[in-house]
């Protein structure tokens, strides 16, 4: 193989689907991963993200559709002929080979004779120079993970696939490895496709995130865009927390006016993914950290033009950087509010009457026909089926 491989191309999935008997793991989907990007497939277990990844790797045959890489159709190519490598969940390091031989495995299979230099460089890159002759079981989880990355990267794949590569690590190590992987990706400039169920991981690492649910891509975009502009309740709940208030559209303009919980709330028309028809129902969403909290006695000082909801604090927990309140109001039974601990108002204790207010520009609107609970508790209501491998 020549150096050509490093100058890859886009990964393009066209009409890809996968069915097992009568169960559909992946509904027909189109997806383009631009060359050189760090792309994340995010979703709960059983959403089809791993199946999609395995189809790109060639470990799973798609029921329908085609996979192309840099404009070349690779649908019929077996895994061992694809210029694509995988970092497996729980790593799948060969237990009978030492670290050097694990890393050299791909090179040797392609007939490369002298692997010493390349393996040495790779060990350097993942900072495991002293461990060359150890067996996998003699390494810690984090070290094994780095070997798995090195074993894949040494082949200069056009695309590196990562299947929940950090799932087995503890939280602190996971944070470190996230930065590490990001560093490696920038260094080698290879396209990374990363499968994860951890929304924070996806958002910190990826340029583009595709949120999957029930075998479909719910929404695709840059992390900030997904967070600020969710198009479905699943995305709104799965990425961070959202307060969803159901209401009726009272008027349409550049701003949509919604009556909910006995008051009028406004949201920008271009941030509403539901059909804007007067009299129609809509779910109004607002992130907890966007809401300010004022004691009812101080309500007069709230600026004009902000959305307001009155309520009563039922619970508060001190988190350090912020305090999280649960507020009961006619608009919603349990509204979440995160307040920065800058100037704490001593009157904001459970039982206090309060006014919630926020900038209408931060409000988003969703179709009211969806379940308000989709994506909460980390599952999408399709938890029954594990990723079939």
């Amino acid at each position, binding site marked *: 193989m020549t150096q050509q491989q490093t100058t890859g191309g886009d990964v393009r999935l066209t009409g890809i689907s996968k069915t097992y008997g*009568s169960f559909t793991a992946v509904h*027909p989907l189109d997806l383009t991963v631009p060359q050189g990007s760090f792309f994340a497939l995010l979703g709960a277990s059983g959403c089809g993200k791993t199946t999609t990844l395995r189809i790109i790797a060639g470990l799973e045959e798609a*029921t*329908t559709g*085609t996979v192309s890489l840099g404009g070349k159709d690779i649908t019929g190519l077996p895994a061992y002929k694809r210029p694509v490598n995988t970092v497996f969940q729980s790593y799948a390091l060969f237990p009978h080979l030492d670290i050097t031989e694990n890393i050299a495995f791909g090179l040797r299979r392609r007939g490369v004779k002298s692997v010493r230099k390349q393996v040495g460089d790779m060990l350097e890159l993942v900072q495991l120079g002293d461990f060359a002759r150890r067996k996998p079981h003699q390494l810690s989880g984090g070290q094994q993970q780095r070997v798995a990355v090195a074993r894949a990267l040494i082949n200069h794949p056009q695309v590196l696939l990562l299947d929940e590569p950090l799932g087995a690590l503890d939280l602190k190590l996971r944070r470190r490895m996230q930065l590490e992987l990001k560093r490696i990706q920038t260094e080698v400039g290879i396209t990374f496709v990363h499968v994860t169920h951890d929304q924070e991981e996806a958002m910190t690492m990826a340029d583009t995130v595709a949120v999957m649910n029930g075998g479909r891509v719910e929404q695709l975009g840059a992390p900030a865009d997904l967070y600020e502009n969710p198009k479905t309740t699943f995305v709104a709940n799965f990425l961070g927390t959202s307060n969803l208030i159901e209401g009726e559209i009272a008027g349409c303009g550049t701003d949509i006016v919604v009556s909910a919980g006995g008051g009028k709330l406004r949201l920008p028309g271009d941030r509403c993914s539901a059909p804007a028809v007067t009299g129609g129902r809509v779910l109004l969403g607002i992130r907890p950290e966007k809401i300010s909290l004022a004691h009812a006695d101080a309500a007069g000082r709230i600026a004009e033009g902000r959305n307001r909801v009155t309520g009563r604090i039922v619970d508060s927990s001190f988190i350090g950087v912020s305090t999280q309140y649960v507020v009961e109001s006619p608009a919603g039974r349990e509204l979440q509010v995160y307040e920065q601990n800058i100037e704490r108002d001593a009157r904001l204790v459970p039982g206090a009457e309060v006014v919630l207010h926020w900038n209408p520009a931060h409000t988003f609107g969703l179709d009211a026909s969806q379940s308000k609970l989709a994506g909460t508790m980390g599952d999408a209501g399709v938890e029954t089926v594990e990723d079939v491998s």
Partner: protein
Amino acid sequence: MTLTEAPPTPAAEPAGPPVRKPSARRRLVPYWLLLPGILWLIVFFAVPLVYQASTSVQTGSLEQGFEVTWHFRTYWDALRDYYPQFVRSLLYAGSATVLCLVLGYPLAYLIAFKAGRWRNLVLVLVIAPFFTSFLIRTLAWKTILADGGAVVDLMNTLHVLDVTSWLGWTESNRVLATPMAVVCGLTYNFLPFMILPLYTSLERIDGRLHEAAGDLYATPATTFRKVTFPLSMPGVVSGTLLTFIPASGDYVNAELLGSTDTKMVGSVIQSQFLRVLDYPTAAALSFILMAIVLLTVTFYIRRSGTEDLV
């Protein structure tokens, strides 16, 4: 593949992309892998059983040849003539199995929980006798239990021999050539088959379970009864089967350590087949033994609720 929900086909959905199916070659792989071994078992294990069944209902003589005459009376005659040997076989095999369990459990427990760094050594000692031909080791029992030997003397002094003789297990002054010698030999020969499965299932038990049981007010005896023993059931079941099945058909111990009064059904089958050359009777006896063992085993597995032995 279920037929309830057919995958979209190009015909049904002209706009849809074509559906791929796994190739026929890959689907045949398991059959090629199975073929030689399974064929071997069919030809040299299953088919012989059919031949044996047919032999058991044949009549004739060695000189004039045998012919299938559906002579089921052979079974009746065989049972009538040899039922003492059948009863003896089951009795001896059953006693040996119980003895193996009683003797083997403490040793398996010792290896699993108490041996510490000696564990591997003790395991080697359990397996080591295997390396000497079992016939030679069985013959050693002739020396150990010899008349006037140390064992018989000791049993005499302690008046154990009086009790066992009264029970009919031994004769008044000897152990060799008595039922006790045969059972003793059977127990000895099949002990490793009891200990190894017992050890395997005991070893899997998390030691913290014992601590948890103790923490929850169980005495050591209760802990054993309510936690350890139930968890070792898979080992008990496979150990007893691995002991009982071969013991019931064994004739080596009965021939080497017993007398004509301790003959087991295996001896009869052997002599009918190889010396008397009465093939129909031998085949019928063998079939009856197989039926008894399979029925016992099936019943036993059902009762113990452990069907995943294979």
